[in-house]
């Protein structure tokens, strides 16, 4: 019987190129889709759905996003406020818009209210914003597939 003793067996090397290609493509995909706007989309808020809710073509010049929970409190960014507590924040925002050379009346208040929030509370939030001087409002809804 004859054995191949002494014959050199080369190291088996896997081809890494397709795996690296694939991995880079995945990274590129996730990098493009990553969303850093955490403050604008609070997970506590379950938006009402509407079949007519389409993303706007142009973003408002000076948007301020206020999010109302089902309890009636208001989130601005990640901080939670009462209706009275949001007034100083809105006044600061108004001054900031003016300092940037803008007109605070062009500021659009985007209201993201929870579907189970009381309508009266949402109206009170609008009134609170009006008392500071803001006039433009949009109500945000989740796009409903038809």
């Amino acid at each position, binding site marked *: 019987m004859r054995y191949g003793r002494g014959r050199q067996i080369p190291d088996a090397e896997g081809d890494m190129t397709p795996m*690296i290609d694939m991995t880079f493509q995945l990274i590129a995909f996730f990098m493009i889709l990553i*969303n850093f706007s955490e403050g604008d989309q609070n997970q506590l808020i379950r938006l009402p759905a*509407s079949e007519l809710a*389409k993303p706007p073509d142009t973003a408002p010049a000076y948007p301020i996003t206020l999010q109302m929970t089902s309890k009636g409190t208001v989130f601005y960014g990640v901080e939670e406020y009462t209706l009275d507590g949001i007034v100083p924040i809105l006044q600061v925002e108004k001054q900031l818009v003016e300092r940037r050379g803008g007109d605070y009346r062009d500021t659009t208040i985007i209201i993201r209210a929870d579907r189970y929030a009381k*309508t009266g509370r949402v109206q009170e939030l609008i009134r609170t914003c009006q008392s500071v001087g803001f*006039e433009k409002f949009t109500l945000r809804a989740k796009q409903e597939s038809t």
Partner: protein
Amino acid sequence: MKFRGSGTRTGGKIELMMTPMIDVVFQLLTFFIMTFKIVSPEGDFFIKMPLAAPSAGVPSDSQLPPIKVRLTAAAGGRLSGIYMSERRLGSFEELRQQVRLLVGDQAGPGGAGDAEVEFDCDYDLNYENVMKAITAVSGYVASDGRIIRLVEKIKFAPPRKE
């Protein structure tokens, strides 16, 4: 002149260290996968809520009076009734049909572009019902997928007491 090391090096194959790069790449991939969040698209409805202006005076003759829609709430904020100009309606679809009858689908004078709807809602009414009502008066999706706009001017009556 003799250069140091000349002639002593052989043309050996330079091997790249792939392990650290693959480590970093997989860490990046893990980070992006863990932070990935599917966000459904959102849209806005413009609400006309200017400050009360006493100097505005009497509205012009060409300005149509707003269509008044009343939404009442039952216990727990559920919708108990839809009224349009004191007339009770059975559903939001009926509200849409009534608005279509009033303003029509066409733009122009006296059309949907000029019409205005004022919502008068109970304080405790769940907000999702208001959004359904706004959707009903704002338009509808035609059979070919196009969005037909009806009323674009929407406002709220002063909030009712809790």
